[in-house]
């Protein structure tokens, strides 16, 4: 049964490969969507099977396809312990992730068929990129070890580099993609260092961990092997390791996740990407792939953070500060894309705050509800921008009458993202607040009291502020009459088409009703299905969390309404706000650092390059040219000459064989 997970992972890859077969871009898009839909169906079968067999928990199925074996020649050497495995890991977390990733990707691709113009270049490339990114994320969540996760982590970055630069002939789009790629490279590098660190510190002791059933070698990067190693390290059972090893490793993992998920010092790429990338790409990137990959990495490496509570505290504070600052900045944004970018950063910060205080299930739950709500918001925003020909929400109004479906989806998704009572976001935000108040890791560890107090305050503030931005966006775009301004064409304000409206509406529906699975107190709720360690999640503080979130969300929505009607002026955040909105001048700092290191070193490298080219490569070229000039005289171009030389060759070879077999050639005599 669990072998089905292979299909979930490989179907999108098949979609990518087959997308280039048909000549028509429309067919290519259909191929991608069909394969993604198949992956979604299989992942749902897998998920339902897991739900039906939830009593078998805790359960993991590890299906190994291939184990890297350096062979016996290196036995005893350092590298001989390198047994990285390629396989799929099926547990509750990866089942849920696979279903959500493939569903959101499917709907986004359907949306993209209506959103992108086919006559434009890059249509096939866009769909191939979307389906490849889906493959990378599915393979990432199904990876049974850190090694595979890292491989697909890098692949994901490459896919989104291509996708974000969809309109690559615009210099801004190319620059946004480049900046995203370079900043996330910092995280990639950290993850690679972490991988090397795991191998250097724990590979020698891996023999102490028994290999899984049916396997000959123990993979040092396997998550469950690492879990045992980490607890061994903290107990002093692993030579050469200790708490400090775990802290360094946890910091590397946190840095990797922070770059991918854009936590505060590394968030500068998000705004530009939202501005320059097509709406489907943004929707996928901000919900279930890039930002989710960081959250997933931390969730997968949770045993590490349990035994390194100091780093967990750093993560909680970093996440909470990111959440509250980004939520505050989002309130003052008038550009619909920047508003959504900051709102996303804020929500992802909440997930990290929850992970840092032991609220594992709540963070994953929030990731899922956020995926639905934010994907619906981004897709609806894409339709609005296409209809109104502007990105300023102050210049949009009247969508409620003229774009009925989109504006209603927008209403539901905004309310869900804000956490309005009974919608999906309400349950997940309540779970996050409850988890932060509970402050307990599965192994009983917890973060310091003052850290927890700071995080609780920040989370509550984020819920209040985070409700304002999406609700304000909805009120501005939907209510009132159509705008009157020069050059505005009111007849353009209409739905783009069913292929755009239906996925948006479906995601909004999920954002409204999808919270049922996380209602606390319900037996076999979300926290009883996806949990860290071996203890199912607890639901204490759940009621308090829900009540506070409900009050704050309604208050935030009220503020947004007051701001819309003009009773409250949206405060200009002044210089401090501009500073944060502009990326805390970090972009300039990054540019300065690059200009003073890489670009300074470039002329030196160029000199070496020139010298090598002149001395070596040009010489090689001339030799080849002389040889070619000599060789072309042999090409007489006549059939009889060619035939004669072919027969001469045959005679030579046959003669050598005969002479060799009869022992008349010295170098073949040994065969006798």
């Amino acid at each position, binding site marked *: 049964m669990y072998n089905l997970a292979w299909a979930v992972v490989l179907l999108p890859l098949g979609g990518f490969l087959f997308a280039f077969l048909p000549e028509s871009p429309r067919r290519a898009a259909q191929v991608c969507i069909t394969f993604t839909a198949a992956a979604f169906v299989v992942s749902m079968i897998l998920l339902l099977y897991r739900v039906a067999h939830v009593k078998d928990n805790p359960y993991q199925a590890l299906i190994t396809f291939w184990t890297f074996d350096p062979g016996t020649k290196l036995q005893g050497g350092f590298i001989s312990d390198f047994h990285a495995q390629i396989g799929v890991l099926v547990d509750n977390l990866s089942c849920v992730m696979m279903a959500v990733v493939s569903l959101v990707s499917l709907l986004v691709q359907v949306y993209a068929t209506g959103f992108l113009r086919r006559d434009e270049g890059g249509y096939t490339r866009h769909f191939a990129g979307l389906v490849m990114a889906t493959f990378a994320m599915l393979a990432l969540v199904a990876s049974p070890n850190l090694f595979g996760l890292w491989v697909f982590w890098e692949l994901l970055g490459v896919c989104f580099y291509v996708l974000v630069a969809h309109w690559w002939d615009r210099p801004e789009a190319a620059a946004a993609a480049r900046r995203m790629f370079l900043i996330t490279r910092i995280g990639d590098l950290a993850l690679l260092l972490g991988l090397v660190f795991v191998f250097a510190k724990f590979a020698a002791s891996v023999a102490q961990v028994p290999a899984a059933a049916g396997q000959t070698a123990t993979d040092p990067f396997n998550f469950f092997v690492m879990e045992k190693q980490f607890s061994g390290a903290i107990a002093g059972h692993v030579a050469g390791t200790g708490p400090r090893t775990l802290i360094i490793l946890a910091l590397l993992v946190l840095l990797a996740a922070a770059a991918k998920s854009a936590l505060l010092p590394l968030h500068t790429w998000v705004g530009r990407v939202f501005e320059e990338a097509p709406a489907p790409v943004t929707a996928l990137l901000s919900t279930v792939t890039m930002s989710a990959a960081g959250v997933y990495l931390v969730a997968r490496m949770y045993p590490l953070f349990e035994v390194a509570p100091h780093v967990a505290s750093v993560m909680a504070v970093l996440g909470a500060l990111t959440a509250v600052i980004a939520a505050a900045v989002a309130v003052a944004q008038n550009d619909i894309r920047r508003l959504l970018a900051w709102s996303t950063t804020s929500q992802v910060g909440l997930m990290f705050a929850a992970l840092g205080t032991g609220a594992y299930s709540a963070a994953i739950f929030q990731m899922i509800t956020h995926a639905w709500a934010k994907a619906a918001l981004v897709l609806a925003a894409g339709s609005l921008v296409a209809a109104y020909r502007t990105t300023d929400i102050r210049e949009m109004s009247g969508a409620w009458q003229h774009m009925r479906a989109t504006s209603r989806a927008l209403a539901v998704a905004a309310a869900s993202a804000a956490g309005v009572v009974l919608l999906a976001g309400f349950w997940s935000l309540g779970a996050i607040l409850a988890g932060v108040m509970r402050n307990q890791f599965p192994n009983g560890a917890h973060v310091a009291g003052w850290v927890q107090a700071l995080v609780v305050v920040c989370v509550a503030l984020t819920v209040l502020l985070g409700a304002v931005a999406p609700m304000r966006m909805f009120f501005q775009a939907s209510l009132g009459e159509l705008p009157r301004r020069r050059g505005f064409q009111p007849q353009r304000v209409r739905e783009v088409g069913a292929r755009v409206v239906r996925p948006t509406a479906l995601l909004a529906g999920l954002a409204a009703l999808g919270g049922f699975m996380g209602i606390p107190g319900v037996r076999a709720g979300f926290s009883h299905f996806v949990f860290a360690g071996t203890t199912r999640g607890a639901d204490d503080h759940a009621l308090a969390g829900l009540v506070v979130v409900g009050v704050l969300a309604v208050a935030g929505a009220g503020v947004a309404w007051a701001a819309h009607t003009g009773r409250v002026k949206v405060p200009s955040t002044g210089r401090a706000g501009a500073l944060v909105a502009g990326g805390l001048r970090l972009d300039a700092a990054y540019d300065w650092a690059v200009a003073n290191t890489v670009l300074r070193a470039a002329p030196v490298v160029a000199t070496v390059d020139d010298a090598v080219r002149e001395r070596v490569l040009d010489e090689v070229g001339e030799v080849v040219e002389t040889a070619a000039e000599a*060789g072309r005289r*042999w*090409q*007489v171009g*006549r*059939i009889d000459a060619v*035939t004669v030389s072919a*027969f001469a060759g045959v005679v030579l070879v046959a003669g050598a064989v005969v002479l060799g077999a009869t022992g008349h050639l010295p170098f073949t005599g040994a065969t006798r």
Partner: protein
Amino acid sequence: MDAGIGHFLALSALLFAIGAFGMLARRNLLGVLMSAQVMVAAATVALAAFARFGYGGSRPLSGAAFAFFVIIGGAAEVLVATAVLLLVHRRRESLDVDELDDLRG
């Protein structure tokens, strides 16, 4: 006297020699192509003979299978080569191989 493997190989060698001679001696491109086909037939005869007289080792039919592939390949070759010949003849009104030296380097 029964025919043994030697007879078939002798036939194959004879056919090959005829083909090789024809290929070198004929001036007409069509003749060159026919000679090439005779050499292919020589190889096919040898392969079929090896299969028939049990020289296939653990895979006794591999010679026969090869022979079939060679036949199919030969058919395809003739198909394409005849089309090329036709086009050459249309353009140059001649199939004399001494005049066809456009591929000179």
